């Protein structure tokens, strides 16, 4: 169904991060928001993305926010870095979604909602780490990878799934030895994200064994957050609820705390 050659070709065709965005990210990582916003203003597409994103209902601003410096100021250092990663990911979104009944606005809403909830989760866990805060942005990459690899095989997958409850992630893993989160990790690597982020993204699948300490805790919260978001009506209708296997036993012990955190966000 999917060959290793196709996967290699997919990875090779991931575009590198545009120079302007890379520079803005470097400034953000160095803690210089002024330079980062100045850099970001030079890219009209990035500027439009930031403006559109900040005026989505989830941020709840009454008046239109349009200046990049203002946007970065509102977001703060960690969230600005996160938003730049979100923008990079938006460059990979397909023009037309075929596998999932989704549009790009819904996808951006998903990104924004995941980011907001992740911020609350990290506050709850008392973790103040910009890299960890940014890592969550790569989780929806798994959806884009899935769309790209399986869009032309929708009918085949439907036939397979009519006899066996197999999710896309498992199908890909059984056919190639790599799963959607491994490929999302490849995207992160290509965009020169730190190795810690790559590792975290991979562990969010809930299938990585021998996780311990903070790594395990973050993987659990990421996995449950992803399923919380994918259980929202719009994403259930889009077919996203079925794209990976929910490892309920992996997250069972954090459910109560999770419910409290998302309820208060």
């Amino acid at each position, binding site marked *: 169904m999917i060959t290793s050659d196709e996967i290699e070709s997919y990875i090779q065709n991931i575009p590198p991060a545009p120079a302007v965005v890379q520079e803005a990210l470097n400034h953000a990582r160095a803690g210089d928001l002024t330079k980062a916003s100045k850099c970001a203003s030079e890219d009209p597409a990035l500027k439009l993305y930031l403006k559109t994103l900040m005026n989505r209902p989830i941020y709840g601003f009454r008046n239109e926010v349009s200046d990049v410096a203002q946007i970065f100021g509102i977001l703060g250092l960690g969230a600005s870095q996160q938003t730049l990663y979100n923008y990079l990911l938006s460059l990979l979104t397909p023009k037309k979604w075929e596998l999932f009944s989704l549009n790009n606005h819904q996808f951006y809403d998903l990104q924004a909602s995941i980011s907001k909830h992740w911020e609350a989760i990290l506050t709850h866990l008392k973790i103040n780490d910009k890299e960890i805060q940014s890592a969550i942005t790569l989780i929806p990459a798994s959806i884009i990878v899935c769309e790209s690899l399986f869009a032309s095989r929708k009918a*085949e997958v439907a036939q397979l799934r009519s006899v066996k409850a197999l999710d896309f992630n498992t199908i890909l893993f059984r056919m190639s030895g790599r799963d959607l989160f491994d490929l999302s990790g490849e995207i992160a690597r290509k965009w020169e994200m730190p190795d810690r982020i790559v590792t975290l993204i991979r562990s969010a699948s809930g299938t990585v064994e021998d996780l311990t300490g903070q790594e395990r805790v973050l993987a659990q919260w990421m996995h449950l957050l992803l399923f919380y978001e994918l259980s929202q009506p*719009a994403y*259930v209708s889009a077919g996203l609820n079925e794209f990976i296997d929910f490892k309920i036993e992996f997250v069972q012990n954090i459910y109560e705390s999770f419910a409290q955190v998302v309820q208060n966000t």
Partner: protein
Amino acid sequence: MRAVVKGRVGIFYLQGFLDGNNAPSFLTLEDIKATEELNIDMLLVSLKKVIFFNKNGLDVFVKLLANVRDQKHIIVGFCDYDHTKYMSINAFYKDNASFSLFKTQEIAELFTSSNKSESRTVLLYNEDPSQRSAMAIELFDYGHNPIMAQSKVEFEEKKKNDSLYYAIIEDTNLGLYGQKVATRVTGNAIIYTISQFLDAEINDTFNLSYHQNSLNVGFRLFIFDAYKVISMNIHALNFFTKLASAAAEYNASICFVGLSFEKTPESFKNDLEDAGLMFFDNMDDILKNKDLLQELGGGGGAAAKQSRSLNKVLVNELPHFIDATVSTIAMMTNAEAVKNSVNIQPLSIPTTNNQYASSIGFYGDIDGLIILIFPKTIAKKACELLIGDANASEEEILDSLAEFVNIIGGRAKVLLSGNKHRLDITLPRTYADVNTLLEIAHNKKGVQVDLSFEGEHFIFFLTR
């Protein structure tokens, strides 16, 4: 979301959170229509991967399940839950549950008919004595061996020896049970259990498509276990007469065991005998009499005496059947199957060692039987995607082979619908020993296509 169909059980696998807001999003109108059209005996919703649910969320599925149950008289309910979830569902619906609850999918499958003749020993307990008895009777009717604990203490004690049982049934409730005629397989005979007063309702409760499937895949002996029948009326008589006429085309035998004529007119017996049905006092009169069993068609081979020949329509559609097979193999393995030769001949297998076979029948505008014979290594490779375990047991491989053949059947159905042929597929059947299949297929002429896959030879055979 579509239900996954395994054997005659359809299951919705839900994940994540389920509440009144998102539950309707799981089911489009097309999904509901497709579910209502499924040819199954049981429809379940698995709660294994649902971390949170509330009554509003469940209600959406309860409504669908109730509609399907009312239309098709099948068993509907929820499965795969822990004790906490079981208690929550019971609290939500109290005594008004219009559905069944099965702790696991494996337990649910014990309450349905299959092509396998496996009698399972199970330990069972329910606080409600009437539920306990109802479950035990049903399990017995499906050919299993239920051991019923009379108290919680006895149950906990017996539970300690869990290796003695195929399943331990607790937190399970039949609720408002579907009223299908229970079916079990013993060797090559199919046994239907009927009870009480038989009237026009038998048309709804008897699973005619399962019966037709069984005829198509080679079963030739059908026994009605009628010990619990009190009487029947003219509508039931007509039903059995028609069933006998249909069976005659396949040279199949239909028998009644234990039917009393105290309250049923004696003339009915004559009418049924004229239609070709036979009557026996005890089940063992048939099952323990090897010669009689052989004569009735339940002795193993069950080959039809009147073999039906290939027809032009079927041969014309041959490319579609081969296409469905080859493309399914390519889809599941990323490797190509090469067609070596095509001949019209009886099934010829160079060696029966280290081979698995499977078959699936189809009926409708055209009818026939697809048989596949693989070397074990190829069967294992073809099923790797479905199993996901390189060290799978033979039972797992054969189960997956059935799913694999189901996909081929499904693909053939889609391809043929392009030529305006409407057809249904039967339950797949798998054979760990190819000789068993040969007993069914010997002397049958068909189209044999010899294919090779990664240097190994496998056979596609299409017959009627």
